Structure formats: C-alpha cells, structure tokens
C-alpha cells in the first residue's frame, strides 16, 4: 500500500506515460522485493524517487513542499517496514513486537514530517530575506556536506 501511494503521488503531479512507466517499474521492484529480498525494495525506492523527480520536472509547477515531506517519510518508512518484514519472516514474534514497531513508525513519521516542515519554514524565511549569489553551487556543496556529516555521524568504531 505504501509503495502504491509512493508510486501514485508523482502521477497526480504529472500524469505522463514516462512517469507511469517508471512507477510501474518501481512498483514491480517493490513487489518482487517483498518476495525475493531487500535490495529489490531499495531499487524500487530509488526508481520511485526518480519517478518523483521526473514528475516534478515535467510539471514545472510551483513547489509542493508538504507533499514532498510526506513522500520522504513514505520512502523511509517503506524501507524500514520492508526490512522488518524480512527480519520477521520465519521467526516467532514476541508479545507486542508489531505494535511497538507500528508505534515507532508512527512517531518517526510525525517527527520527521514536523522536522521537514520546520526545515521548509526556515529555508523559506532565509531565501526570502537573503539572496545568495551562486545558489546552485552552494546547494551542491551543502548536499555533499550533509551526506558527509551523516556519514560521520553514523560511523562508530566497532566494539
């Protein structure tokens, strides 16, 4: 269901054949991933993100930031649920495992959505007040720095 929602949302933005094709591929990969393995689900998420980017590029409409935040939450939760599904396969589930996971995903979705909205607000305010030259170059450097920062943050020596 989550995969269908992720694949369907770009079609609402730009109902084009190319978007539909990518959506079908993403959905097929996610479906196969449920049966065969997590790498296919990750591939499906990557294709769905490409589909979303293509839909945005084709539509050329003003930014829909709330939808984007929800899409991001959806992609993350899709990957986490698929991975949990694989871990829970052929295993005895203790009492409250599924309920606590669902609570966690709901909380994570709410926090991530709120964080994204706060980030949108801060970015909108900043972009309205400050006009920075070479904005694309700065965005690229910022993206690279964000990834490096995340990589450093999650890197922890093994014990």
């Amino acid at each position, binding site marked *: 269901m989550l995969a269908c929602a992720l694949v369907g949302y770009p079609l609402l933005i730009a109902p084009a054949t190319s978007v539909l094709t990518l959506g079908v591929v993403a959905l097929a990969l996610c479906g196969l991933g449920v049966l065969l393995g997590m790498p296919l689900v990750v591939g499906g998420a990557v294709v769905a993100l490409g589909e979303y980017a293509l839909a945005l590029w084709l539509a050329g409409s003003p930014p829909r930031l709330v939808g*984007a935040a929800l899409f*991001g939450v959806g992609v993350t939760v899709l990957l986490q649920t698929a991975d949990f599904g694989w871990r829970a396969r052929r295993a005895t589930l203790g009492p409250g495992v599924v309920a606590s*996971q669902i609570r966690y995903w709901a909380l994570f979705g709410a926090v991530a959505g709120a964080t994204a909205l706060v980030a949108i607000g801060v970015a909108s305010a900043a972009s309205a007040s400050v006009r920075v030259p070479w904005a694309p170059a700065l965005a690229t450097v910022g993206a690279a720095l964000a*990834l490096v920062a995340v990589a450093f943050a999650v890197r922890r020596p093994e014990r």
Partner: protein
Amino acid sequence: MTTRLTPLALSITTVGAWGLVLAVFSGRAELVVVVVPVLLALLVTARAPATPDWSIAHAISSARVFEGERVMVTVTVVAGEPVALLELFEPLPSGLRVVSGHNRGLFTLARGQRVEWKYEVECVRRGRVSLGTMHARCWDRAGLHAGETAMCAPWQLRVYPSVLPLRRLPGPRRTQSSVGNYVAPAVGEGIEPGDIRAFVPGDRIRHVNWRASLRFRRLFVTQYHLERNADVILMLDTLAEAGAAPDTTVDASIRAAAALATAYLARKDRVGLIEYCGPFRWVRPDSGRAHHERLLEALLRADVMFSYVTQEVALVPRRVLPPQALVIAISPLLDARFEKAVVDLAARGFDVAVLSPSPIPLVRRARRASTSVDLACRLWTLERTARAEALRRLGIAIVEWDPAEPLQAALVGLTGARRRRAAAR
C-alpha cells in the same frame, strides 16, 4: 557485543544521496525536502545504543527420546534493561527438525520482563545432540543499527534409535543354562508339560497328575520341559555406509540392532553387541532393563569411524562372544573385512545369521533417477547376489532387507533360510 550498521543504513544513505543528486540536477526544492526524513532516520542511529542486559535459560520437555519423537524447547528470556528489538537464533543440527514454531524469535522487552518462547523439534536421527549456543542480535527500532553476541545456555538431548516391534525372531540353535523362554527337550523345572511317569518318593505333590492317578489307581507325576535362554550376539558393521542421512545403511542397521536387542531381551535372552569399525567395540552379553539401556547407549555412539586398525575376530574375548551364542551379523556387506569376519565366525562353529540392509534402495532414493543410476544399481544387485550366494555356499544364512520394508518380513525370511540350512545338514 559487536555493534555495526546494518545494510539498511547503507540503503537509506544511498536513497538519500540519490535524492540530493536529483535535487541538484533538477533544481527542485521538493527533492531536498524528501531527503530530510531520510537524513533524520540516519541521524537517529548516531545515538549511542543502550548497553544490553538480558539472560537466557533453556528447558526441554525430555532429555532422552527415540527417533521420530518430538521435544518441546522452551527458551526463557529475562531483560534487565529495556531492549528495543532482540532477535534470537538457535541453529539446530541436521538430526533435529523444527515442526512447530521457529528456532528464531524477535522480542521487545521492558525492564524486568520475562518472555517464554517455545518451539517443537522432531528428532530425525539418533545421536547425542549438544546445543545451547544462542546467537543474539539487538536491533534499534529503525533497523539501522545492530549489536551481535552469542550466549551459551547448554542443553543435551539423547536420541535413541527407534525400536521397531518384532513378534517372531530367529531362534537360537543352542540354548544356555539360565531360565528363559525356549522349551528345551530335557525335562526339569518349567511350565511346559512333557511326559508322565510314576510317582517316586521325593517328587513334589503339586506335580502329581491327579487325572492319570485316578484312572490308574496309583500316583503319577507330570514332568515339565526345561525352559532355557540363549546368548544372542548382535554384530554390527560400521566399517562403511551408503545412502543419505538419516537413512544410511548404518542408520538402518542400528535400528535393526535396537529392535532385535529389545525383542531378545524381552524373551529373557542375554544379548551382547559387537561393533566392528576396524577395531572392535563391544558390550558383554547380559539381560535385564539396565542392560537394555547399556545397549542403546552403545548404539547411540555407533558410527562409521575411519581407522587403519583391522582386528581379527579371534581377538574378541570368549566372555563377549560365548561359543554357544547365536550371532546375528547386521551388515550391508559393503566392506570385505566384515565378510571375512563372518566367514571366520562360521568356520569356528558359531551359529551365524546375516541380516543385510540393502544399500541399493537407499542409494537409489538419495540420487536422482537416471539411466546410468539404474544400470549401476542393477549391476550392484548382481554383485551383491553373487556375494550372498558365496556366503550361502559356506553355510551361512543370509537375508537381504530393504529398510523401507518391515524388519519383521526380513526376519521371517531369515528364520526360513536357517531352517532350510539346518534341514540340509
């Protein structure tokens, strides 16, 4: 505990990087916003995980079972500290098969919580099973970070060979002096009536045959046949095996030996066991329930063992191989050394019968059907028939047993072969 990032963390990083690349190239702000939850998920893993604190205890429904029986394994997990998601996995040896539940479990534990996890295993092959190494993996809720460790809560299971019910057994040619179930021609103390003779002083009153005494007007007593037992030696061939576990020729031989030992002991015979695996390993003949346990324990450890030693059967002590004993050799006749030992025994005057679990159907079942396998099996059958005939010419009764068929049917054939052999003499 060894902690590491999971493949999911790498996957999420990849998706995030892909989103940022798309954002830069498309120049759309939405794609940056899409990446924000992804980055947030990764940043959550940067928190130091709590030190795991839990303990595991094992309990099994029975520590001694027979093949085919089931055992319930109960694992109790007690958490000292809250555990977000604990994955436990207990690898099982090939002799055990999970029939209900799973040998892997996922648990969420609160502080001081106690969780019981049960699964049932079927014991498919005899042997001593030592288990108890539990692999534990402690996940964070997002599944991005995991700590691994192995805990030991040892438990041991003894799986004895299944005992097939037998009603008719090959009778021994000679009996021993102890009381048993075989009616001897000689008269004495027993319960099987034999002859009637005139009463003489010293006879017991309870032996007086009152019907005959009244008819002839003088006292007569009933004589009874002696009831004797026999020594039965089961000689097990573990020099070589064929087929796929748990249905190899050695497995079939051991099941047959267990069934024969149980049946002969039930008839008050003394049963001994000689395992020929290059050197000899033996259990002295005896009777009783304790001895039954001894034999099953010996069968539990019987297996094919490579050895450069090849002992002669003459080295087996007389107390282990009594001269009057019936020797039932259980062998798939794969190794010429066992045949030589059997011929040697027969030449020394032992009452020898050979029960040969056929390796051909076992190998045929273990391999995919093909013309070459079929041809090989037919040639093998011819070779086995020739070898069996050679043993028959030496006066040794031999019967082939397909382990898929009931053992009783093969034993009836063995009894018939022995009878014909005795008549020919």
